[in-house]
């Protein structure tokens, strides 16, 4: 009987001890003790794990290196392909921007009909400011038609073949355009030069020319339509002894990076040469 009671007491004490330990463990009182007890095992586990990983890597690395090298080559090829695609897309974006701006220009002047063309070449002689475009008489382009782009006046058609045409830029030394100075309210003649600059010549000294004055085509002479922007006056040269003053004009068109142009096909230039009197002997 006594033995039975003792065993029950032992069980109760054991149960209480277990419950106490569990309560202490759950409440965190045993953490330092657990840590101290498990840390040697963790150290051993870590030691074994690193050795095991090193051995596995030693066995499998040659295979991995080969596959990694292959993967690296594939990725490099993919990168170069993507870079090519990026460049192509950038070019397309640039072309699209030019086309949009040309379209915008054309929409703002619905009275004209246009043919868009890309610049495909330049005159090989540095004395001449001419460009070649990829559209010709097959597209309705004719000699003398004015050429513009989104920024303003570019020049006029000088020669035409079936699929190409040559444009004389307004910066060419042989080019002259009848212009109108918007602020000064006067007409003048603008000519190109060897250096690619454009100048106003033979302007009377009575007229007040100022830097910043907008230069547009006057339409006189019948070579260009009126009111096409050419540029701005940047500097005026005038002395008291001179009969005329001259001025430099900053063109609105970037002739160094001319990529696309619009040819005004419904404008018929007037040939005034028969009206110019010739000296008879």
């Amino acid at each position: 009987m006594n033995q039975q009671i003792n065993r029950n007491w032992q069980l109760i004490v054991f149960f209480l001890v277990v419950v106490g330990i569990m309560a202490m463990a759950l409440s965190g009182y045993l953490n330092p003790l657990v840590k101290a007890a498990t840390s040697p095992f963790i150290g051993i586990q870590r030691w074994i794990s690193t050795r095991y990983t090193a051995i596995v890597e030693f066995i499998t690395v040659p295979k991995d290196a080969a596959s990694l090298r292959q993967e690296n080559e594939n990725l490099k090829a993919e990168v170069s392909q993507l870079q090519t695609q990026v460049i192509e897309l950038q070019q397309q974006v640039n072309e699209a921007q030019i086309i949009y701006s040309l379209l915008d220009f054309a929409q703002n002047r619905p009275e004209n009909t246009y043919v868009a063309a890309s610049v495909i070449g330049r005159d090989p002689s540095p004395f001449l400011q001419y460009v070649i475009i990829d559209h010709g008489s097959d597209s309705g382009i004719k000699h003398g038609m004015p050429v513009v782009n989104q920024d303003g006046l570019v020049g006029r058609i000088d020669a035409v073949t079936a699929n190409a045409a040559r444009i004389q830029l307004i910066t060419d030394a042989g080019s002259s355009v009848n212009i109108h100075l918007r602020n000064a309210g006067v007409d003048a003649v603008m000519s190109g030069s060897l250096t690619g600059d454009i100048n106003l010549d033979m302007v009377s000294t009575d007229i007040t020319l100022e830097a910043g004055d907008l230069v547009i085509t006057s339409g006189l002479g019948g070579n260009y339509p009126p009111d096409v922007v050419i540029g701005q006056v940047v500097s005026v040269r005038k002395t008291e002894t001179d009969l005329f003053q001259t001025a430099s004009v900053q063109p609105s068109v970037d002739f160094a990076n001319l990529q696309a142009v619009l040819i005004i096909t419904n404008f018929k230039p007037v040939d005034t040469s028969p009206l110019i009197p010739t000296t008879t002997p």
Partner: protein
Amino acid sequence: MGGAADIMLLVLIAWALQEEVDDAWQWTLLGGLLIGLISKLPFYFYIPVYFVIIGFARFLRSRFWQAPAIGMFITTVLGTLVLQMATLVVLQLSGMSIKLSESFGYIVLPSVLLNLLLSIPMQAIVSDLAQFVYRSQGKNERI
């Protein structure tokens, strides 16, 4: 600076200076015709000017056969000067008023300098090309 390099002229000079080359005149005719068709200048303008320059190059080839680079330099400088001065004369005759001093400083001298700079690599490229062409031709003849 407003000058421009004349790649066609440089190629023709370098080709004419090669020892093995016998067909320089034919290429000069073709090159002159091609450039003449693009340019605003009369299409027949480039052919005689190029012929004069290539003739000079062929003359120099016999004098500087051991140092083609010297022949290339001399022909490039003189050839560019001749070409630009001839262009100037033609443009003046066609009624374009061009100041000589302005054109010399702005167009002619920069063009000479550009051509001179490009003449070195061009001579090397064309020399390699000539070796490649005539070596393969020699092999074909042997076969």
